[in-house]
């Protein structure tokens, strides 16, 4: 018999679905834009009587990630009751997110409750009038089964300190529960925030009081929920400073126990985009800590006076396209996506872009979300950039699918609406040539069984789910699949799963194979193993074999046994001419990135026209000038060295001296380091290195143009020289790969770039390659002169790929 003692979490509901008040990854986001007081656009639509337009704004709130949509119709001179009725009818029948009915009038609230099909939140009640309205609204909440928000206001006004806020919360709670029969789980408390951005001496500890009140309400009324209207905290500050303060304060409030927030996500920056100092200054302001001569408010304002978040700048010319794409995913930035991808397509296949760049970036987004650094709306924006990117790449992909390929059934499990992970798996698998039947979100085990029965060609079942409860559902469903007589392998993926959980809790419940996949790639590998006939169920050894936490989340890099044999050991100079490497120059990066000729909204024809009439002639003119003036004097030194790995340190013994490279490791998953691609345990391995330069003349010529204020010519020549150096590096890498007979494999990592940003680390390379022999030297800050020089290590491991620490 079922367990009647289990406690069911408090939920809200729309016509279509239920929403947990306590989100597994807090907070519950309540979109605030459908309010004539807060949004000019909404007000105008309301005044025009454009209910459909208002509904579109509600849908937009939902689309950008609001779990609940706040709806207010209060505007002086309008019939609030009639407006509310029309809006609730329209919103109630369309939105998947439950409503928050925002009104002070019991009459309006009843109209809304009567017309609303699901379970909304009423916003709000308080004791300002001694309880007259509260009496009516509590009765309505009871009658219609609604949840209700209490503001900490009483006959004396808004509570300013934590004691008073908590006391009023208790008073509202006791009245609502004892007199009106509401359940504690029906109640939200908003302890109110006041601005700490006005300089008002009485308000300097407003944030401290609010945070303390949240903590106390959660402790003393544990079944009740807390909610805040966020943006009040930063009232009076400039826009960007507000966005920073809002974001940092929200993070603190969630830490203090905040369950829900009323917010416009556009008024917040994602935390990962606020620098350390800005964040510290915001915290100083929130906790009223004076660290220097300036008051925390002044220090904060000064810092943000000319604060710009990267999106406002257009300095993309100097960033590698790999990094640019990663940033675009992280920042949910869709601008110039076309240009970035076209640049990347010069050096990557579309599938490599998906596998090596897009998916790792999305993984990082997922981790930021999981750690509370990124709000759901921003995650959705990132997923949208991912989707758009794949859309752009898809026509260029050669699908290797054939008729007898593996067919995979893919679903997000019952009760879970999070489909970002599932969609990633779909992208990866279908672009790797597998057939994917994606049956969407909230899929019950019963539906899955039925689908498999109806589609006997399905070979593998892939289940995804973000939530902890999804892990439980996967575990429970094993029995259902078993009972239904299924034998096909089941792959499980999701944030709350671990290898241990799958091995211990899921594998035993099912007769077929059950495999944990930590990400979409692991899913791809599992399908490949299935094809090869060697797929194994997840296993978990004894507890004491648990590795350190970092290693646990590291990607396992299988090490190669066959170390290639280089044609020589030590250093050599390679003779090159510009005819050999200039054809390798990445014109897309040069034109769109360095020279800034972006396609933007031009049609294909218009852009083609621009290239032909202006850009290509400029390019030809530069090549001409290079030849006639002899601007390039390219020189190359390269070498092969035996090496050993000690943990993260790579050691090279050369001519009786030991050289060490301490490659950095990613601080986030998958915690990669260049050293991972080398064999450990004192086994010998091989590393290649090279150093190239274009000589001094091209840099000098460019600087002369700059000094003559010929900025456009400078930009053209400088951009060209950077890409020409890249082309030479590319050429040398190809040559070295040929030397080893490993074709396209391997990866080069240049110092000063994302996988190894620390220039200091190139000192040993310089000594080994004797850079001075080709006229390259290091400055005291380890930068190379001449400017157009590139140093790199060459890794032969076939899985070595681009990443950023």
């Amino acid at each position, binding site marked *: 018999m079922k367990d009647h003692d289990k406690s069911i979490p408090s939920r809200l509901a729309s016509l279509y679905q239920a*929403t947990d008040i306590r989100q597994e990854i807090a907070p519950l986001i309540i979109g605030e834009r459908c309010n004539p007081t807060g949004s000019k656009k909404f007000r105008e639509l309301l005044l025009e009587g454009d209910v459909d337009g208002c509904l579109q704004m509600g849908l937009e709130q939902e689309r950008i990630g609001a779990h609940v949509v706040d709806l207010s119709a209060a505007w002086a001179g309008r019939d609030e009751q009639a407006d509310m009725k029309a809006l609730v009818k329209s919103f109630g029948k369309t939105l998947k997110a439950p409503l928050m009915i925002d009104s002070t009038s019991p009459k309006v609230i009843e109209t809304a409750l009567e017309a609303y099909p699901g379970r909304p939140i009423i916003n709000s009640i308080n004791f300002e009038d001694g309880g007259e309205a509260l009496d009516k609204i509590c009765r309505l909440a009871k009658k219609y089964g609604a949840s209700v928000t209490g503001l900490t206001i009483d006959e004396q006004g808004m509570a300013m300190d934590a004691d008073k806020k908590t006391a009023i919360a208790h008073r509202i709670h006791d009245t609502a529960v004892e007199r009106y029969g509401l359940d504690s789980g029906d109640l939200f408390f908003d302890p109110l925030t006041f601005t700490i951005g006005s300089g008002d001496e009485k308000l300097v500890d407003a944030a401290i009081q609010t945070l303390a009140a949240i903590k106390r309400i959660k402790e003393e009324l544990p079944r009740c929920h807390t909610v805040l209207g966020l943006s009040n905290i930063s009232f009076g500050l400039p826009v960007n400073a507000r966005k920073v303060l809002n974001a940092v304060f929200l993070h603190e409030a969630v830490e203090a126990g905040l369950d829900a927030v009323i917010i416009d996500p556009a008024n917040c920056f994602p935390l990962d985009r606020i620098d350390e100092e800005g964040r510290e200054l915001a915290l100083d302001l929130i906790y009223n800590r004076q660290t220097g001569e300036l008051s925390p408010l002044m220090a904060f304002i000064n810092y943000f006076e000319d604060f710009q978040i990267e999106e406002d700048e257009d300095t993309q010319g100097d960033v590698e396209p790999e990094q640019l794409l990663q940033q675009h995913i992280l920042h949910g930035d869709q601008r110039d996506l076309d240009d970035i991808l076209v640049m990347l397509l010069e050096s990557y296949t579309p599938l490599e872009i998906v596998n090596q760049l897009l998916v790792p970036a999305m993984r990082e987004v997922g981790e930021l979300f999981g750690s509370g650094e990124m709000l759901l709306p921003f995650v959705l924006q990132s997923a949208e950039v991912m989707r758009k990117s794949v859309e752009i790449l898809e026509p260029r992909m050669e699908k290797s699918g054939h008729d007898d390929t593996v067919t995979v059934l893919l679903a997000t499990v019952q009760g879970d609406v999070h489909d970002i992970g599932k969609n990633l798996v779909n992208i990866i698998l279908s672009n790797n040539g597998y057939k994917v039947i994606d049956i969407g979100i909230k899929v019950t085990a019963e539906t899955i069984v039925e689908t498999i029965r109806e589609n006997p060609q399905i070979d593998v079942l892939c289940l995804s789910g973000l939530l902890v409860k999804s892990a439980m559902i996967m575990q429970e469903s094993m029995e259902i699949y078993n009972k239904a007589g299924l034998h096909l392998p089941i792959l499980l993926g999701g944030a709350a799963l671990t290898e241990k959980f799958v091995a211990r809790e899921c594998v035993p419940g099912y007769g077929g194979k059950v495999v944990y996949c930590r990400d979409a790639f692991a899913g791809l590998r599992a399908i490949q193993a299935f094809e090869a006939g060697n797929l194994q169920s997840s296993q978990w050894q004894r507890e004491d074999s648990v590795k350190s936490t970092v290693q646990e989340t590291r990607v396992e890099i299988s090490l190669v046994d066959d170390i290639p044999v280089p044609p020589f050991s030590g250093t050599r100079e390679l003779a090159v001419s510009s005819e050999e490497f200039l054809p390798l120059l990445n014109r897309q990066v040069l034109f769109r990135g360095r020279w800034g000729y972006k396609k933007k909204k031009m049609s294909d024809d218009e852009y083609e026209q621009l290239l032909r009439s202006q850009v290509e002639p400029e390019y030809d003119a530069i090549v001409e000038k290079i030849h006639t003036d002899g601007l390039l004097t390219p020189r190359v030194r390269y070498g092969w060295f035996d090496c050993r790995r000690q943990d993260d340190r790579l050691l090279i013994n050369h001519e009786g001296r030991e050289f060490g490279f301490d490659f950095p490791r990613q601080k986030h998953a998958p915690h990669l380091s260049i050293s991972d691609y080398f064999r450990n345990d004192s086994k010998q391995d091989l590393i290649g290195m090279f150093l190239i330069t274009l000589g001094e003349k091209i840099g000098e010529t460019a600087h002369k143009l700059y000094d003559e204020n010929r900025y456009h010519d400078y930009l053209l020549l400088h951009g060209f020289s950077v890409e020409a150096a890249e082309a030479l590096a590319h050429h040398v890498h190809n040559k070295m790969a040929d030397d080893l007979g490993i074709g396209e494999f391997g990866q080069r990592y240049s110092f000063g770039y994302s996988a190894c940003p620390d220039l200091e680390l190139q000192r040993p390379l310089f000594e080994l390659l004797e850079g001075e022999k080709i006229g390259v030297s290091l400055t005291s800050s380890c930068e190379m002169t001449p400017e157009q020089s590139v140093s790199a290590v060459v890794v032969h491991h076939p899985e070595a790929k681009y990443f950023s620490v």
Partner: protein
Amino acid sequence: MKNRQNSIEISCFLGNEYHLKGQWKIRVIARKGRPKRLIGFKLFKILQKKQAKTCLQTIMSITNEQLLIFDGACGTTLQSMNLPADAWEGIDGCNEYLNLSAPQSIIELHGGFLEAGAMVIETNTFGASSLVLGEYGLEDRVEEINHAAVRNARKAISECSRSDRNHYVAGSVGPTTKLPILGHIEPAALAASVKEQMRALIEAGVDCLIIETCQDLLQVKTVLVACFELLEELGRDLPVLSSVTFEQQGTMLVGSDIGAVCATIAPFPVISLGLNCATGPVDMEPQIHYLSENWDRRISCIPNQGMPIVQDGETVYPLSPSGYADHMLDFIDRFGISIIGGCCGTSPAHIRALADALANRSREVRS
């Protein structure tokens, strides 16, 4: 098993002892006007001994019966009874009118299920609100028809030969023919109409109300609001059961999933939530499974006998009596459902198979 509804009103005689089907033994120690808790019961009024017996057998038991077996289909069973066309007295298609025009047939209908082993029979009032009766010009006869329906049900119980179980009357409240979410009717008008019907059923002495075949979340919510408002007005504490209808694709007609239903109905003091009509037990499984984990009160399951098929020009429901009974027993074991019965296509033979299977099993458990 814990039950939220274990605190209920009963009426009994001071100082007397009552034995109730071996489950409860009560000694009345409280006086009028001084309610006291005694093994979970509030004692309020002191009535005549005779009345007290009735009360104890009915009001108390329906919420404390571990398992309630409901009856089967009304519509499809009536069809199979081949009533003469004049039974409807010209009001063709209005089965509720048969309560007046052919009471004996309705008593016979109920009797078939009672003899088969049903414990609860639903009144023949599925469409007995003014909204539906109005389609036959009968909108003024709501009270009359509902009263007659309860009378017929009581008559059937009094004529029933089985004494191995308690029998109850559930007032059936259907969804009407209008969906408020689609704007067919204003919630207030729906509430007024259904309230009138529920008032008539309560006055006539039903043991509980079942709000069933709900296809629109706004409709079920509106009816629940009206129902509990009415009970408060009347000062009554009658058990209310709620039952929604899910289409084969796994949502209600307008797209609500079971989570939305559960969260919306949870605040109302219904004694149960479950599914009836539209599909057979197989298609109900995901929702029943969900309820077993997300609903803290009783769960009801009143399915059709599968999805109808046309055979020799007739609509047939494919599930056999034993097949149906197996499904129900399986759901009892796996999901803890405790209110079971059948909707379209459920004949007395189906209910007999279910009741017998349960009786066999409890004998096995005892021996």
